[in-house]
């Protein structure tokens, strides 16, 4: 589903990604862990080209994003993204947040988009919040709406950029539960996270990144219980 070849990204003189190679299969849930500054968020943002890559190739479902002739907007429609700080549109109600892109980008009609949005709100357990503005929602509710908004474009892949890092501890669970459902439904997911419990339970594979490289990868059980690389060991000893 996703193929990344020799991905490089620099901000000025700072080289954040120093050659990432990775394949992600359909329905696979890949969790990316690592210390802050290791480039994991940048890696995720490169996958839908919110950060343009300096070098390397990224393919999603066989289409190359990094090719200059590719219509990036078309591909982004198939790649949902959930942000650490939610980034809901504050001037729109929950419902309008969800229906905006299907209507304006997909050309879906009002009624259809409305039904789709209501289905999604039901799925994330917020049917009663359809007409509420984001400012009136708790952090956990905001993030669930953000997930519904991304799902409304019926993406093939979902990217999660530390989706629970900005939440109060008691709200982390409700967001992870929604993500877990999504994973079990067979969504292809790339999750940058500090929730080691989630990575271990839901992840099919864990990537450990440090200093712009994937240092170690494998099954969650192997990575967490029997890390081979010294840096992985050092990191896990601090967070587990």
């Amino acid at each position, binding site marked *: 589903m996703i193929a990344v070849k020799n991905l490089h990204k620099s901000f000025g003189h700072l080289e954040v990604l120093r050659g990432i190679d990775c394949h992600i299969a359909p329905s696979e849930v890949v969790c990316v862990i690592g210390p802050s500054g290791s480039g994991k968020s940048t890696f995720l943002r490169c996958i839908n080209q919110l950060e343009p890559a300096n070098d390397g190739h990224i393919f999603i479902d066989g289409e190359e994003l990094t090719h200059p002739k590719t219509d990036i*907007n078309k591909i982004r429609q198939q790649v*949902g*993204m959930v942000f650490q700080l939610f980034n*809901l549109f504050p*001037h729109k109600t929950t419902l309008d947040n969800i229906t905006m*892109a299907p209507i*304006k980008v997909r050309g879906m009609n009002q009624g259809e988009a409305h039904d789709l949005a209501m289905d999604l709100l039901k799925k994330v357990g917020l049917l009663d919040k359809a007409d509420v503005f984001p400012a009136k929602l708790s952090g956990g509710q905001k993030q669930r709406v953000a997930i519904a*908004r*991304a799902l409304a*474009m019926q993406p093939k892949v979902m990217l999660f950029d530390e989706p629970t890092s900005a939440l109060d501890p008691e709200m982390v669970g409700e967001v992870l539960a929604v993500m877990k459902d999504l994973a079990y439904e067979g969504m292809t997911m790339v999750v940058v996270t500090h929730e080691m419990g989630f990575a271990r339970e839901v992840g099919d594979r864990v990537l450990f990144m440090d200093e712009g490289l994937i240092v170690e990868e494998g099954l969650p059980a192997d990575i967490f219980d029997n890390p081979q690389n010294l840096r992985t060991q050092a990191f896990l000893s601090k967070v587990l």
Partner: protein
Amino acid sequence: MLPIELPGIFAVNLVDQFLAIRGYQIVSSHMGYLLEGAVLTLKITVISVFIGMILGLIAGLCKLSSIKILNGIATAYIDFFRGTPLYVQILLIYFGILPLLFNAGEFTAAIIACSLNSGAYIAEIVRAGIQAVDRGQMEAARSLGMTKNQAMKLVILPQAYKIVIPPLINEFIAVLKDTSLVAVISAEELTLRGKLLYSTTFEAAWVWGTVAMIYFVMTKLLSILGDWVERRMATE
């Protein structure tokens, strides 16, 4: 009439004495004349700010554009009109540029000069307003597959416009005061009418004092309107 009971003769004398002052008589008998000028001032202001808003929106967006030529034109326009005095701009446009293009009256020239000038200031307000919208909003919109233009229209501008309203009302007040400079090309707005009335009567304190009061009432009303809009938007 007076709240305090004064000896009859004294009170009548005071009022009569006041009404008999020459400056008062001149100003009160020419109030209509001055207010006509104030109406023209308002007209020039409203039309100029309206055109300035359109110019400012376009120039502000161009200034943020990654297309070099648009960016260059917008930068040159904004820098020129913010970097030279409005007084000089009015003279240049009325005597220097417009005669080469068409036969424009002083009212048209005044509006063209004030619009171009305020457009440059509004462009900076627009640019700042757009940049004040959180970067994550653009990213979220783009991640849903919106083009840059769609994201701007549907997500960024509706939020920027709320940020922009208070400084826009300040700009409105600034333009209202700045229109006094168009007196130099004999557009008969409030200041020029004041000048004409003064030059025939030499009642400087009365005439200019009245002109100042009329300006003050207009700007005060605008700022009250501004406060009201701001409060309404805060509760929205």
